């Protein structure tokens, strides 16, 4: 019975070679350009933050406002370097696609879980000290900025973090469950 089904499956008509070697090399080069462009956009975004707050360091009055901007710039640098290091560790070894399904997907899930767990530390904490100093110093040193403005911005920031943390926890739990399932399938 199952032999009939196997024969049915294997008797499907096929169209022939999907790509020739030159097509493959062309696609490989294109894929590399896409990755390079994506990295460039990430670094450009970080550069805009650094240049923006760097400008404020020079242009604004107030010692602590300038210090706050400088700390934000340092935090953004730290984010850029950490994300770059994460990106390096995210690149799987060349032969990784030929790992077994369980190995390949276990590695992917572990990578995602690590990234999600570190996302707060990598992206929020580095700029928090500078940001906090700005919100406290700005109403004192800048005439155009009030305490109400600082409270609104601080409230929005805390609100976003408060909403994100449970979502991060949910995602981590889901990834952990998927990893457990893979582990059970691979256990002798």
């Amino acid at each position, binding site marked *: 019975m199952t032999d009939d089904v196997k024969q049915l499956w294997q008797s499907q008509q096929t169209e022939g070679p999907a790509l020739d070697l030159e097509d493959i090399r062309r696609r*490989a080069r294109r894929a590399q350009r896409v990755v390079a462009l994506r990295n460039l956009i990430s670094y450009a975004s970080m550069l805009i933050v650094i240049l923006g707050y760097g400008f404020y360091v020079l242009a604004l009055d107030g010692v602590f406002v300038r210090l706050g901007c400088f700390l934000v710039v340092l935090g953004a640098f730290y984010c850029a370097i950490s994300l770059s290091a994460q990106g390096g560790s995210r690149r799987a070894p060349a032969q990784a696609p030929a790992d077994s399904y369980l190995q390949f997907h276990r590695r992917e899930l572990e990578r995602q879980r690590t990234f999600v767990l570190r996302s707060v530390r990598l992206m929020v904490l580095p700029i928090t000290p500078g940001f906090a100093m700005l919100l406290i110093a700005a109403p004192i040193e800048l005439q155009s900025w009030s305490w109400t403005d600082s409270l609104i911005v601080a409230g929005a920031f805390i609100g976003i973090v408060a909403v994100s943390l449970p979502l991060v926890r949910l995602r981590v739990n889901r990834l952990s469950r998927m990893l457990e399932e893979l582990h059970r399938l691979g256990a002798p």
Partner: protein
Amino acid sequence: MQHETDQDQRYAEAAAAHGPALERMARGYEADPDRRRDLLQEIHLALWRSLAAFDGRCSLATWVYRVAHNVAASHVGRQKRLSRGLCGVEELERAPAPDDPERETGERQAMDRLMGLVHALRPIDRQVMLLFLEDLPAAEISAVTGMSPGAVATKIHRIKALLAERFHGARSHD
């Protein structure tokens, strides 16, 4: 240059030996013809790239199937909306066969039904099903998937029961 030639040669060998199986496998992972074409090209690209690092840790066939299934399973994972409705072989075993008053006859309808069954499976079960349909022995299925031999044997047993129930049942009404 020698390294590039080895990679190209291995790829040519792999594509010649397993090209049709890869095409059938792509159909098992993607129903839409345009996306399926993209998936198949992605598989061939990943295969060519990976063969630069082929180290003989497994047979070329196992290597090819691993790369192909990993790329395809990642493709299914990206289709998040569709993958929510997927299930395992065990759930399909428990579900009643579709009650179609117009009993399906003919190879085309049987193929459509088989494809529907395959597309309902989540990636790991789909992988075992597709490798089983390609007539790979259990030991090689275990090598490709990384599942324990016991887990593979259980899945194959359930697949056989499921296929017998879904296809034998239709035949008795012809």
